[in-house]
């Protein structure tokens, strides 16, 4: 899931204080799991902003709302009309959601980020989130025992540990496991250690963010959707 953390309150306040009618807009998927931007957190943030506005003597109307997802158009639809009545949307969705809604509103209303989108991670225990994947677009976990060296090694080393590995800990922080130590131990257990001796070609980073915005197009689904739409138009049931 995508993990985020609410921005410092003062930073958020600076963003919103110049507006008159603000909607704090939560997303109830990933960012709700990490207690940063779901409906509950949006409500709490709206309440804090109202308290601040009151104390500063500002006439600011601040509401909150939430929808299941900010990354698919149909989830926005029920609240589209309501959203248009505000002069700022403070989104507590991840950066994807902020971008997507800003595109949807096409400059009619600004959409500001209420959280800092931090990483793709898991929740090993309640209230604790760890980064496990960097979305590099060219996964090599089959070569590294299921442990990602790109984000779990502090230096993203691709060819084994650096000289600083220290009894299983990383030289950058003693609280961080050395990813390459974990990889070697895991591959020993899996009986696949010899895989590490295979020479790998230089990595192609164009699949990561270095190659411009990335897209994935599932042609069979898009073609089907286009056909369905065409049929609906012909039979007069167009949306």
């Amino acid at each position: 899931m995508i993990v985020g953390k609410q921005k410092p309150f003062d930073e958020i306040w600076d963003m919103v204080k110049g507006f008159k009618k603000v909607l704090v807009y939560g997303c109830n998927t990933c960012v709700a799991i990490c207690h940063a931007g779901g409906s509950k957190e949006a409500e709490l943030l709206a309440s804090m902003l109202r308290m601040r506005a009151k104390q500063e003597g500002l006439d600011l109307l601040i509401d909150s709302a939430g929808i299941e997802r900010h990354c698919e158009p149909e989830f926005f639809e029920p609240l589209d009309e309501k959203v248009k009545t505000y002069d700022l949307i403070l989104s507590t969705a991840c950066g994807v959601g902020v971008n997507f809604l800003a595109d949807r509103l096409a400059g009619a209303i600004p959409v500001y980020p209420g959280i800092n989108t931090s990483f793709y991670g898991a929740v090993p225990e309640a209230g604790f989130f760890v980064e496990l994947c960097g979305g590099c677009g060219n996964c090599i976990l089959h070569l590294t025992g299921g442990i990602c060296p790109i984000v779990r090694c502090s230096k993203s080393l691709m060819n084994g540990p650096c000289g600083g590995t220290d009894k299983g800990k990383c030289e950058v922080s003693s609280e961080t496991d050395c990813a390459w130590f974990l990889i070697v131990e895991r591959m020993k257990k899996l009986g696949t250690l010899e895989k590490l001796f295979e020479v790998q070609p230089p990595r192609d980073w164009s699949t990561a963010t270095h190659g411009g915005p990335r897209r994935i197009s599932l042609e069979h689904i898009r073609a089907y959707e286009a056909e369905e739409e065409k049929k609906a138009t012909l039979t007069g049931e167009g949306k």
Partner: protein
Amino acid sequence: MFAARRIEYVKTLLKKVGIDPARLEMYNLSAAMGPRWAEMCDEFVDRIRNLGPSPIWLASRKQSEKGVTEQ
């Protein structure tokens, strides 16, 4: 206890908006502890009296006074 931790968390939020976290407190007691309940209420009322009116209340009053003078 989860509720107690949440109260601690809400105290940090109140601080962020300029409200003294001492204005919020959680007490534990059973239904059979009437005298203790009265004691707690007195304690908390004293505390709030000492803290004085809340900044929100002061701001509301200031605003309504301003409204009256403007009229």
